[in-house]
């Protein structure tokens, strides 16, 4: 019995310290001073952990973000946190391959090899982002994390990784919630130390809205999101400019990511009289909407439009997605990109399977360049100053595959063009669809 109680206490202390480590913020301290003598042993033990943990974390900011030392011959560690299983596996796998190619291309940084120390799965969910990033930062040698694939995973990952002093740089997070609204206001989930080479969906939403209103001439639109920050952010970014142009959002609704029966929601949309449905969600929910929209009475003439989350080979080859429109990042046309695609195809036996590989390739190279700037070499031992590393990323102008990248105050590094593409009978695969550009919008075209 005594033994048991001891174990319980130990477990409690362990859990508490885990919780505190996970919260990881700099604040604290205040509450720990209220420890009173009258407390039972259990809570006293709890208080003890609070003080010791708070003591450790408060020392860190005094010296900046700290440094990472890489001994002679040791590799520089970076990590990948991408969606590599489940329905969005193609989105993440595509980028992991790009990171691997970038590492192979780079070879060495100041005499040290680069190691992809983690290849974590973000599960395209906030739980996945939380678990994966916590696992990664447990290794104090990891300098930067390339990820996440999904904005939903990016929200917790950005918090966890940046508060550990490291950098998260994503090639495919597009939700405005992670950076800013592009009008100079930081978003709720922006943390210093977060960067991305993908576009901000404020741009994509505006581009899609402009296309629907001006090119298709449709004014009655329904939007569907699945509650994820990416999809919610993008439908929001579509609705505001669309209404500003003079269009009407007849229904702004949501489904869940694992929902299969979309007919009820589509019936509602038919009743609302939508001419176009904009559903920037993921597979498989996107499959079901496209399939069942063909069957619901009243939607026979309704145009379907998706976004970059659905621009994958597994989606555009479905029969029901023919004639669908998509918005997405512009496909580079440079020789450097063609060379990259050749390497990709040689290494993995297929052409790129999604739209964000080039973005992750650029992100990885930006990390390499920033490491070079921020480290000092002392007889083979490399010292990377984490604050200088962040500053280097902030100040860098990098000419990458996706164009010229220079980060603004809130981590948005891309100045992207958005392509509107259509899946037709002639476009056999994702390459064909991405090549079938109807119109391309730059940031200036959209007045952002």
């Amino acid at each position, binding site marked *: 019995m005594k033994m048991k109680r001891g174990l319980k206490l130990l477990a409690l202390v362990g859990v508490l310290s885990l919780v505190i480590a996970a919260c990881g913020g700099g604040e604290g301290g205040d509450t720990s001073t209220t420890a009173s003598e009258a407390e039972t042993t259990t809570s006293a033990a709890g208080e003890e952990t609070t003080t010791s943990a708070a003591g450790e974390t408060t020392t860190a900011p005094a010296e900046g973000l700290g440094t990472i030392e890489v001994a002679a011959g040791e590799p520089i560690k970076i990590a990948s946190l991408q969606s590599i299983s489940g329905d969005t596996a193609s989105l993440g796998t595509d980028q992991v391959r790009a990171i691997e190619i970038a590492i192979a291309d780079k070879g060495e940084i100041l005499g040290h090899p680069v190691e992809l120390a983690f290849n974590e799965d973000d599960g395209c969910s906030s739980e996945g982002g939380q678990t994966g990033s916590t696992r990664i930062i447990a290794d104090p040698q990891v300098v930067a994390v390339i990820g996440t694939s999904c904005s939903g995973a990016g929200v917790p990952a950005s918090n966890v990784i940046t508060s550990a002093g490291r950098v998260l740089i994503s090639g495919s997070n597009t939700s405005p919630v992670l950076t800013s609204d592009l009008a100079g206001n930081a978003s709720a989930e922006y943390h210093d130390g977060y960067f991305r080479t993908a576009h901000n969906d404020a741009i994509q939403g505006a581009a899609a809205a402009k296309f629907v209103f001006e090119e298709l001439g449709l004014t009655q639109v329904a939007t569907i999101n699945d509650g994820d920050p990416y999809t919610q952010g993008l439908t929001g970014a579509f609705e505001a400019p669309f209404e500003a142009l003079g269009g009407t959002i007849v229904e702004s609704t949501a489904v869940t990511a694992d929902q299969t029966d979309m007919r009820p929601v589509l019936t509602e949309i038919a009743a609302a009289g939508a001419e176009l449905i904009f559903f920037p969600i993921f597979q498989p929910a996107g*499959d079901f909407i496209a399939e069942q929209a063909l069957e619901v009475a009243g939607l026979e003439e309704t145009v379907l439009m998706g976004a970059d989350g659905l621009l994958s080979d597994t989606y555009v080859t479905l029969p029901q997605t023919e004639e669908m429109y998509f918005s997405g990042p512009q496909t580079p046309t440079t020789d450097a990109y063609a060379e990259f695609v050749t390497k990709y195809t040689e290494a993995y036996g297929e052409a790129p399977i999604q739209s964000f590989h080039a973005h992750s390739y650029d992100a990885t190279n930006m990390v390499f360049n920033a490491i070079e700037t921020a480290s000092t070499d002392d007889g083979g031992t490399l010292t990377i100053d984490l604050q200088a590393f962040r500053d280097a990323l902030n100040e860098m102008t990098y000419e990458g595959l996706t164009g010229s990248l220079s980060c603004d105050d809130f981590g948005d590094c891309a100045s992207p063009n958005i392509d509107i593409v259509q899946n037709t009978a002639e476009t056999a695969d994702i390459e064909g669809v991405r090549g079938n550009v109807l119109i391309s919008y730059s940031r200036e075209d959209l007045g952002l």
Partner: protein
Amino acid sequence: MTEAATVEARPARRASRITPVSVFLWALRIAILAIILYGSYLSISSGRLSAAQWRDLFVFGISTGSMYALIALGYTMVYGVLRFINFAHGEVFMVGGMMAFYVANALAVTPLWISSPALSLLIVMVAAMFTSTAVAVIVERIAYRPLRGAPRLIPLITSIGASFTIQYLVRGLVGPATTSFPRMEPLRGTFEFGGFVILKTQLLVIVAALVMMGGLYLFVEKTRTGKSMRAVAEDPETAALMGINVDRTIVNVFAIGGAMAGVAGGLWGLVFPSINFFSGFLPGIKAFTSAVLGGIGNIVGAMLGGVSLGIFESVGPSLVLAGYEIPAFSQLKDVVAYAALVLVLIFRPTGILGERLAEERT
């Protein structure tokens, strides 16, 4: 004297039954009914959806619900004889769907797919049925039979383990990606009779489910094997004394449950033509809910529970939630489904038709 005492005692006993809890429960029931009715009134009177659209919602609900019902049969039958919930049953369904997908894909490139779609469909369904049956029987043999005498909680936990094992075996075998079924042209479009329009796939699903469930009901009620199943469900020890091979009967139960799940898997693929290794989870949980809704252990209850759950899920958000102008109410479909379960259990704690258990064994 004694008469007077009983006369006095009766009202007293009655009074003592009206506890604060039962008052609260009745108030809760009335409040919930009022909320549902008022929401429905608001929603219908707004004229947002036409009568045809309401009818469509019902039909969608019935077709999804009949698939839930087919899966729910497996839960309820296993519960009937072994008194535990076989959580691996959702995966048995998924494996059937996977096999249906592979067979359909293989057939889709042959001329048979175009020339005789009915035959191809039959092949697909039979393949799905056999695969699911085999998996269900193997799971029973490996995971449950060695635990026959153990407390009921142990096979329950084992079933969760079996569920994960099957899921990730399939993931290992076919990969994590979502794959999609080939189209079957004759099943596209709608079917009309007397002004009533229904999607052909849905009609097929409803008819197939009815045939399967009718067949199962006759099988359980009329055949010797069915009789032995009912006997084992009643009391396995006495059944054994009567010369019934209990182990074989249990295998039969798993096999039939698996076959139903396999058919459901194939039908599911026709209606929702995408599948991955995780596809069995949600329908499995929904079917389990259906089984409880109808009264677990009760075969007719499972059928009724499945169809009701399908209808609640399909009509509920538009009918009740939309009336209160809740934004994005379609997302709350699952909330409606599980809330319906809670509500039905508040009114009828043993489910719509009631548990059918031998009293002493519960």
